[in-house]
């Protein structure tokens, strides 16, 4: 039975905004063919989080997020380095980075568990996610991130649209395409980091990809696509949280991922998967 207590309300509000943010930034990543970049970055945050957990002697939120940032940035730099200096294609590079960082992250977590540090369970939470750990502090961080993202997207709407659609033409028009690319990638990473403890490393990419994929099936208009993706992300997160809260032993991250994927599959059936006939 679902009981709307204070904690659940905080979790729902937090997930509403997180789902909205993930759907919004995921839509841009989807159009820029960077969906798998989000997956690789999410996995790459694991070693940094585990190392920060050991160095900070426990689950200090700031240090864990800082560790995840450093780790994610290392992955990003490695991806760019491999892309420029090798003949590997992007999918190969992302596969390498994802495996290396996630493997190293698991080793770090095993090492961290050998120390008698408080809140050890938080490390496994980062892999699978747990909304029960959400507090008001998390809610503020998610809210600020969502507002910042929405504001920037609204302000640079035409620039983001142009650089996403046709970066060569954008460069001839004097736009600094690299800056907008970096902006989107950093926002993608920020969204992943704030969602890690709630949805988990493994399923964070689902929250980025599934709403955008479903949205693309319903519309061929840029603004509607971005708006629907944010809406689907928010709905999937809230519905997932409520299902997770209503039944005992229901892991939050996987339930949200299943809801998001179910909606995408449902959209595929309803629209017959024909993206070219929707206008």
């Amino acid at each position: 039975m679902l009981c709307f207590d204070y904690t659940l309300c905080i979790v729902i509000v937090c997930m509403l905004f997180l789902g909205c943010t993930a759907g919004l930034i995921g839509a841009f990543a989807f159009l820029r063919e960077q969906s798998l970049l989000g997956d690789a970055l999410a996995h790459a945050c694991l070693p940094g989080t585990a190392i920060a957990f050991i160095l900070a002697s426990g689950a200090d939120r700031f240090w864990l997020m800082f560790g995840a940032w450093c780790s994610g940035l290392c992955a990003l730099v490695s991806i760019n380095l491999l892309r420029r200096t090798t003949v590997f294609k992007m999918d190969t590079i992302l596969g390498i980075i994802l495996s290396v960082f996630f493997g190293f992250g698991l080793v770090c977590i095993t090492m961290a568990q050998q120390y008698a540090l408080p809140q050890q369970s938080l490390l496994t939470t980062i892999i699978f996610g747990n909304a029960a750990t959400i507090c008001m502090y998390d809610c503020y961080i998610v809210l600020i991130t969502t507002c910042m993202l929405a504001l920037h997207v609204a302000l640079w709407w035409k620039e983001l649209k142009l650089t996403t659609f046709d970066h060569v033409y954008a460069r001839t028009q004097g736009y600094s395409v690299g800056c907008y690319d970096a902006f989107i990638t950093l926002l993608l990473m920020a969204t992943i980091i704030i969602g890690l403890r709630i949805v988990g490393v493994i399923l964070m990419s689902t929250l980025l990809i599934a709403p955008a994929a479903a949205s693309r099936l319903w519309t061929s208009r840029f603004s509607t696509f971005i708006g629907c993706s944010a809406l689907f992300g928010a709905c999937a997160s809230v519905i997932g949280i409520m299902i997770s809260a209503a039944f005992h032993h229901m892991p939050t991250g996987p339930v949200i991922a299943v809801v998001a994927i179910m909606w995408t599959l449902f959209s595929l059936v309803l629209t017959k998967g024909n993206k070219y006939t929707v206008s």
Partner: protein
Amino acid sequence: MNAALVIQELTVAYQKKPVLWHVNAVIPQGIMMAVVGPNGAGKSTLLKTAIQLIKPMSGCIELFGQNHASALQRVAYVPQRLSIDWTFPITVLEVVLMGTYASLGWFVRPGHKERKRALDALQAVEMDTYADTSISQLSGGQQQRIFIARALVQQADLYLMDEPFVGIDAPTELLIVSIMQSLRDQGKTMIIVHHDLQSIDTHFEWIMLLNVQCIAYGQRDRVFTQENLAKTYGKHVAMRI
């Protein structure tokens, strides 16, 4: 009057392999020029270097007597049609409106005036009835027309087009040529990468023959000779034309 384009000792290389080698040319304003040559001759590279997408190894290109970025605002670039993701969720009007973005400031979105300009450009390419259509529903010729419309909206002085006639039907080709001729009559300059040597006579009065080096450039009657074609394509090809 300044030349539209001055190319001085231009050398461009990809990984130390020269694609353009010591190219020199002065292209006057108000002409329609085809850049022709075999595959790998450096035709697209020449256009991309002119709009600073590629950095030359040596030499430079001046646009309207300037070699800095501000001159780029007078240039409209029409890329190859296949360089775009045509499944992108966007309408025809939205793509054409992109041609107005550079004239707007930061945080300013296109308004009624820009929409009017975009619709006029769509009318010029006979695509005004497709304004709200998704680009994924367009044929090859229609895709090329909206690229031309986007360039028209810019109201540029120099138009650089990379193979605009590839994969399009005859009516679209004739329409694009008539638009180009009309722009030339207004004093605009057109530089077009072109493959079909058979249509050179009907479409262009200026030609640049390029094969890494600039073989010849100038008015068609003077440049489009068997000797120059043999230097550009080899004797066997030149004999057939």
